[in-house]
């Protein structure tokens, strides 16, 4: 082996793996979870210590333990559960109606070129319009009950879903449409085999946008109406300067948002098994 030992050559050796200790191996496997949990825990610990030591003003920012205490006392009250029920009702009815109406209508409008040309200005108009500005008008039409807030929720969800749905149908792959036509697929089969699966990714991205909009809708509606709901709870807690109760209400909406986003993600994964898993999602 004169070549390998000759000073004129640099030998490149393979990587030799040293065995790592068991704890290190476990950490490597679960790094993602460990670091994100650590980030959350660290934040709360700093907050708690800070408010106990006086770096953080308890009056304005409360503390994790105070929020937990406020939450524990809230969940024993019947009024709290009435608020939860009302907020849930507004969200379910408003979001449900927006999905049930926006998806079929979006597919219908997207499929017929002339319809989409006709409706385009209106869809863009309502999408551009800040829907918060409509809230007083919605109150005028529907009063201050839960149905008014469901309408505000609906307005948030509907346009978020219908616009991408129309776009999805309009951009159905032409060469796949040729396949369907070539094999003489019925219109029904063209819809079920091509238009609907091709539009699903667009509907899902609409749903993602809708999650944020319906939550904003329900909070704005409840702030404005001040009748019942978690939003009202936050509002009233502010009036009595209870920052712990306010933050508990915020926490409920946050958890709701996370649950909704995760549900959309789960639906997406289920409906798009046929898609390659991207690196950044793995």
């Amino acid at each position, binding site marked *: 082996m004169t070549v390998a030992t000759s000073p004129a050559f640099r030998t490149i050796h393979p990587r030799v793996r040293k065995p790592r200790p068991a704890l290190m191996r476990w950490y490597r496997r679960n790094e993602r979870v460990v670091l994100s949990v650590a980030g959350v825990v660290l934040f709360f610990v700093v907050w708690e210590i800070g408010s106990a030591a006086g770096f953080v003003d308890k009056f304005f920012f409360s503390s994790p333990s105070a929020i937990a205490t406020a939450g524990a006392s809230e969940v024993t009250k019947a009024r709290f559960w009435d608020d939860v029920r009302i907020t849930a009702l507004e969200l379910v009815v408003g979001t449900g109606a927006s999905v049930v109406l926006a998806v079929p209508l979006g597919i219908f409008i997207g499929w017929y070129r002339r319809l989409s040309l006709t409706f385009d200005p209106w869809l863009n108009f309502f999408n551009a319009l800040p829907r918060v500005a409509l809230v007083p008008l919605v109150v005028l039409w529907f009063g201050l009950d839960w149905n008014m807030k469901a309408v505000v929720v609906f307005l948030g969800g509907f346009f978020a879903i219908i616009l991408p749905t129309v776009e999805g149908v309009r951009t159905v792959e032409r060469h796949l449409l040729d396949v369907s036509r070539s094999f003489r697929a019925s219109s029904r*089969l063209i819809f079920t*085999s091509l238009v609907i699966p091709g539009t699903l990714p667009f509907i899902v991205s609409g749903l993602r946008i809708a999650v944020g909009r319906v939550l904003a809708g329900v909070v704005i509606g409840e702030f404005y109406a001040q009748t019942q709901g978690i939003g009202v709870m936050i509002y009233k807690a502010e009036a009595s300067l209870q920052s712990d109760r306010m933050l508990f209400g915020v926490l409920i909406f946050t958890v709701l948002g996370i649950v909704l986003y995760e549900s959309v993600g789960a639906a997406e994964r289920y409906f798009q098994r046929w898609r390659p898993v991207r690196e950044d999602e793995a």
Partner: protein
Amino acid sequence: MTIDVAREPGQHMALSARGVQMEYRDRQTGHRLLALERVDLDIPDGAFVSLLGPSGCGKSTFLKIVNGLILATAGEIKLHRVAKGREDAMVFQDAALFPWYSVVDNVAYGLVCAGVSRKEARSRAVPYIDLVGLKGFADKYPYQLSGGMQQRANLARALAVDSAILLMDEPFASLDAQTRELMQAELLRIWTAARKTVLFVTHQIDEAVFLSDRVVVMAARPGRVIADIAIDLPRPRSLEMKQTPEFARYEAQIWKLIAHQQPSDTAPVP
């Protein structure tokens, strides 16, 4: 424009086209463009015929007219009627598989379109999946297949409807050179097994010569047939045949025909 399905038995033309013409009117200028000018073509039952020409010569347009995807502006095409099933089925250029369907559902698609229940269509698709060499891949999704395998599935989908004539629109154009050669040999094996009439569109001279009984050479502007060359090479053919002098002679002959057309005429017709 009519596409007639011939009824009289004993007529041995799978396809017979007379004076097929395709004219476009440019929306901006209002000029007329002749994509196809009086194309006559006869394809006997069981033959393998290639349409060869530069892009813009209307070869794919002709195929789509036969398939019924577009309507010609003049002329007529007769397709030999078959007792059951479709007269024609298309193998598309870019595999054009439904990404949300597994291989078996893609292959079964033509049957489902014909009104066969999904369950029966799936079971009828299986032998064709095996025939094209995709055994064991029935439940894979298109993204899990290589380009060559996607084209195999594309071919199986057209074979599964058991049509009398297969229309193939440059099916190997997007494959790499080695895979393309392999698929050419595979296609001949499958063609022998399935005993179909094939109308094969390509711009590759060696592909047309290797596969075909006849090569119909087309030219662009207007798209028209300029030669119809019988390829008298023995069958079965293997890829080694491409090295023989006879094969080279056919290639040279066709190359001369195409080279004599003006090179500036290769811009695609809209």
